[in-house]
Structure formats: structure tokens, C-alpha cells
């Protein structure tokens, strides 16, 4: 029984990681209706920033997280201003093409700058100790992930549902002309929103390196599972993404433990089933 609980706990931690990654995509896909298949690229940027700071400059772990957040956000802002804002209005196929292209290019640049190998990330010792929680021995790092996930989740939900900024974004997405009419600078709003989405992806990436490793194939490797989280959760719904990420993380871990022969399979079957019966995701957009 303890074994099962440990597995579930690990699944929850993995789910939190997925959530952190997906939060940004939920925002851009759901609120801005931009099919951003390049989301993984921002995660990768966060990862490389974290690794460079940690290994190259010896910056303490807790500090690299906000730095990764900010730097990736800035990178996202630059990309948005230069190119992406022109793509919002294009038909879906063009968005798919552009963002896949962006992901390829980002991976290639990472390869050129850092090489194709795995980036080492040595976590500080306070994160690798075992902690006893409810009678289970778990790694502090997984606890940290769960805590971060909850914190970020609350922050983002608060931001989009309870602030003026959030209201403006929702208004602008629904009726752009009208929002502009009442004086909302929609371009700037979208810039900020996209950058936030990228920043959260960067944070997720920085946190993921210690767990999943980092190399230039990162953008496309994790794209699918992140898309799944957003699709199942319902694009635009942060709560939905949270639940979907948890669900996927736990289901994946459970099946790999209980029925290893079909382990990897199950989450894709889940995706297909969910999409057929809940094509809009399990939760409506938070508007």
C-alpha cells in the first residue's frame, strides 16, 4: 500500500510539473486562440538559462527560478513583438506552420550554442534529501514541485479571474473591437499575456531539468503531452489544466506501476477518449 501511495505521490509531482509547463499554453491557446506549438521552445529557454546560471555562474537554485522566469518572459515578449503578433489573425494552418517552424529553429539554435548533449543539472543538497510525509519517504524535490505548482496555479487563477488585468484580457479576446473602443490597448495586453505565458513555460522548464534532463530536442518532445493537458483541461481554463495535468500524471504513473505492459499507451488512449466525449475539454474557459 505504501508502494502504491508513493507511486501516486510521484505521479502528483509529475502532474504538477506538467501543469507548470502547460499553464502558459493554456493562456495563449485558450485566451488568445493562438495555436502555439512552439511553447516547448520557451520551456527549453528557461531550462538553458537555469543550467547556465547554475553551472556557469554558481547562482543559487532559488534565485535562478525567478531569473529564468523573467528572462524567458522577455524573450517571449521580443518574439511576440517581432513576429508572433502578426500570426494571431492568420488561419489555423498558418499558426501551426509558424509555431512548428519556431520550435524547430529554437531547437537548432540550442544545438548550435550548447551542443546536442544532455545538460547536467546538479540540484542543491537541500532538494535531494528524503523527507517523511504521512509516513512515506519522498524526495524534497518532488515536494518542492508540488508546492510550486499549487502556488503558481493560485497566482495565475487569481491574476486572470480577480484582477482588472484579467478582466481586460478576457474582454479583449471576446470582442476585440469593443475592447479597443473603450480604450483598452489590446496589442499591449496581448504582449503582456503572451510574455507571461512564455515566462511560466520558462519557469516550468527550469524546474524540469533536474527531473527530466535537457537537450535540444526538448521543444518537441514535451509538446504533445502539454497539448494533451491543455486539450483535456479545456483551453483557457487554468483549473481545467490543473486537473488534467494531475489526472495525466497520476494515471501515467499508476498504469506504469500496475500494468507496465500498457503503461505508455494509456495516456494517449485517454486523450482520444476525452476528445471524443469532451471535445471542448472538461472545463469551460474561465470567462
Amino acid at each position, binding site marked *: 500500500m505504501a508502494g502504491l501511495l508513493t507511486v501516486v505521490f510521484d505521479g502528483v509531482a509529475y502532474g504538477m510539473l506538467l501543469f507548470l509547463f502547460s499553464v502558459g499554453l493554456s493562456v495563449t491557446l485558450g485566451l488568445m486562440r493562438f495555436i502555439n506549438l512552439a511553447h516547448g521552445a520557451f520551456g527549453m529557454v528557461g531550462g538553458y538559462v537555469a543550467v547556465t546560471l547554475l553551472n556557469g555562474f554558481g547562482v543559487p537554485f532559488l534565485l535562478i527560478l525567478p531569473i529564468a522566469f523573467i528572462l524567458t518572459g522577455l524573450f517571449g515578449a521580443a518574439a511576440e513583438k517581432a513576429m508572433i503578433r502578426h500570426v494571431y489573425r492568420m488561419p489555423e494552418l498558418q499558426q501551426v506552420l509558424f509555431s512548428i517552424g519556431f520550435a524547430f529553429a529554437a531547437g537548432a539554435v540550442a544545438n548550435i550554442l550548447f551542443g546536442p*548533449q544532455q*545538460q*547536467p543539472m546538479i540540484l542543491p543538497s537541500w532538494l*535531494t534529501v528524503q523527507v517523511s510525509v504521512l509516513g512515506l519517504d519522498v524526495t524534497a524535490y518532488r515536494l518542492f514541485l508540488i508546492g510550486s505548482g499549487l502556488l503558481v496555479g493560485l497566482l495565475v487563477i487569481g491574476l486572470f479571474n480577480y484582477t482588472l488585468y484579467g478582466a481586460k484580457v478576457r474582454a479583449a479576446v471576446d470582442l476585440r473591437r469593443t475592447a479597443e473602443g473603450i480604450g483598452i490597448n489590446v496589442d499591449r495586453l496581448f504582449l503582456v499575456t503572451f510574455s507571461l505565458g512564455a515566462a511560466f513555460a520558462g519557469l516550468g522548464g527550469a524546474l524540469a531539468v533536474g*527531473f527530466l*534532463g535537457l537537450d535540444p530536442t526538448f521543444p518537441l518532445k514535451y509538446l504533445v503531452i502539454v497539448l494533451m493537458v491543455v486539450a483535456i483541461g479545456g483551453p483557457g481554463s487554468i483549473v481545467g489544466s490543473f486537473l488534467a495535468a494531475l489526472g495525466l500524471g497520476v494515471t501515467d504513473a499508476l498504469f506504469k506501476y500496475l500494468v*507496465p505492459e500498457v503503461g*505508455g499507451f494509456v495516456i494517449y488512449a485517454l486523450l482520444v477518449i476525452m476528445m471524443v466525449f469532451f471535445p471542448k475539454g472538461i472545463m469551460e474557459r474561465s470567462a
Partner: protein
Amino acid sequence: MNGSWNTTRRALIAAIPAAALLLSAGSALAQQKTLTVGVVLPLSGVFADQGRHYEDGMKLFQKMHGTESAGVKVNMVVRDDQGPGSGDLARRLTQELIVRDKADIILGYSFTPTAMSVATLLTEAKKPAVLVNATGAVVPTRSEYFVRASVTSAQLAVSLAKWAVDNNIKTVYTLVADFAPGIEIETFFKKAFEAGGGKVIGGARTPVSATDYSPFLQRVLEAKPEALFAFNPGGDVSVAFMKQTKERNLAKAGIKLLVTGDVVDDSQLPAMGDAVDGVISSLNYQPDLDNPLNVQFVKAFHEMMGPNVSPSYRAVMGYDGMGFIYEALKRSGGKTDADSLLAALKGAKIDSPRGTISIDAQTRDITQDIYIRRGQMKDGKWVNSAIKTYPAMKGAAD
């Protein structure tokens, strides 16, 4: 009119000796024989790192020993097969190397499936291929033109099994990646271990590209074996595996970790940190081997790649692959046709940074020493250090 005729005549007169010179130079060039080595490696994609190591080894060999052997100039033409799972690409690249680039011999193939996919092509085209990895047991049997200069799953698994038996380990749980090399390694280990009186109390197979091992490791902890025997295909997958074994603290549970050496590839150790502490692995190479050739090799390697990069066993296998080709040229007396080369490769023996290695004339497989290493801290860095050698292990399991 007259003037231009004179000019023309002068030009013609000047041209004749020039032409003669060119012709003689041409025939002199024609006299220098060349051997074109077609190299097929994964240079992009997830396993690009591995491909690069092999290539570094090959280039280093040519840097250290020159580009000629037995009077024959050896040229490399390198193609990227983009990793395993695109066997049709590797096959087409091999065909193009043979048809377009006139390759006389192929060197490369990191993955067993890739090698398998080209077997019938090599047999039809009658060109030999020296394998720098491709550890699957059946590979040399698929084509008479395969020569393996690398390492076999049998060697890695059986040596670990022997060590486990010699060190009084009675129960083992196995965890291997779920594809042919993994299943093979599991089979060889189990056979050798149980033949020595041990018992495999359980096992599981992990998805090839899995990065989350915790459900599997959970099962290991519950089974309480004395040791865990594991194999995964290297790269980020193995790094994740090693990190998670540390996280789950197998050591605290008293479970020894036995892995095949590619899991704890020396060049990947920085990414694993202290997860490698006390881990026992088997491999055909060890950077701190103190034979003179290795000392030279490591020195030249550091000159080429920088002082902080540890040479991977893959670099050595690439180096030796080229080494065998040079040796084959010497043994065949400079003959570059396929049959002479193949005959010269069978039974060839060279001194390598790994020790003395040879190609078995019957099986065309590699015979070499296998080292058992333990991970430990040395001079502030985590390294694998050799603790035992199993000499002259044959490629095939008995």
C-alpha cells in the same frame, strides 16, 4: 592575321609540355591508391552525442596515425543516419555511399536495428562493414560482411553476472529497456547468473525512451533483491534513470546497482553527480587504464577536445574501428577489394587504448578484456574506476 597565328602557335607549343606534365602527374596520382571509408553515424537527433563520439575517435586516429596505411590513402565520407528508428534512411545512405561515393568499406552503425536494416544490402553489394557499436547478438550472423569492433551485449551482461556470483550476491531484480538489445542483455545476464547459482527474483521492462522510472523503481524496492541489474540505452534516458535511483535511495535499502557500462558512460558522469557512487558497471574501456597507448590516446584526446571532456568508450570504439581498417590494409598488402579486406579483418589483432583486441575469424566478432568498474570520487570528480578485469572475453556467450 599572321600575328595571331604566331600567338596561337606559341600557345600550342607551350601547351604541349604542360599537357605532358599534367598527364604524368595524373598517372602519378592514379598510382596512389585510395580507400574510401563510408561512415554512417547518428549525428543529429537525440543520440547525436553518441555519434559525435565515434566520429571524434575516428578523426583522432587519423590525426595520430596519419591518413595512410600500407601506401593507401584512407578517406572518410561521413553521412548522418539521424539515429535509430530510421533504418530505411541508413540503408539508403549506405547504398549512396557505395554507389555514389564509391566507398570500399563502411564504418559505423551505432544501433542494432540500423545494422540489421543494411545487412541484405551489404551482402548484395559485397562490401564489408566494420561496426562501431550495434551490440545485438544476431548482427554478425545477418551478413557475412559484418565485422564487429565494438562490444557485445553478451560481454557486458555475462561479466556482470560473473562478478555478482563471485561477490556472493544471491538475488537480483532486472530492469531493462524494452527493445532487442535490452531483452538480449536480460537473457544473457539471467543465464550466466543462474548458472553461477544465483536467482533472478523478478524483472520488468521499461519503455525505451522512458524518463520516469519511479513506478518501476518502486517495484524494485518492494522486491528487496540484493542487487538491481539495469540497462537503458544511454543519453538523457540513462541520466534520468541514474538520478532517480539516487532519489529512491537504493543504496539505503541495501540494493546494489549493477549496470552495463553504457548507462554510466564516462562522458555523461558530470550530469549524474553522486548518483554513480558505488555503482558497479561493466565496460570494455576505462579512461584511467594505464597502458601506454591509452595514456597517449587520452592526451591526444584532451588536446583535440579540451581538458574537461572525458573520453567515452564510444570514442575508443570509433578509434579502433578505423584502427582495424588500417590493420586490414597492412595485412592485405594494400589491396582494397572487398574480399581481401574481409579476409584481412578476420583474425586481425590490434593494440588499442582498451588493451589488445582481436576479431574472431569464425564469428567476425570482437574478443577483448572487459573491465568491472565502481563509481567513486577521485580528485574532486566522480569517475568509474576499474576494480576487476575479465580478460579476453569472446563476443558470443557460451
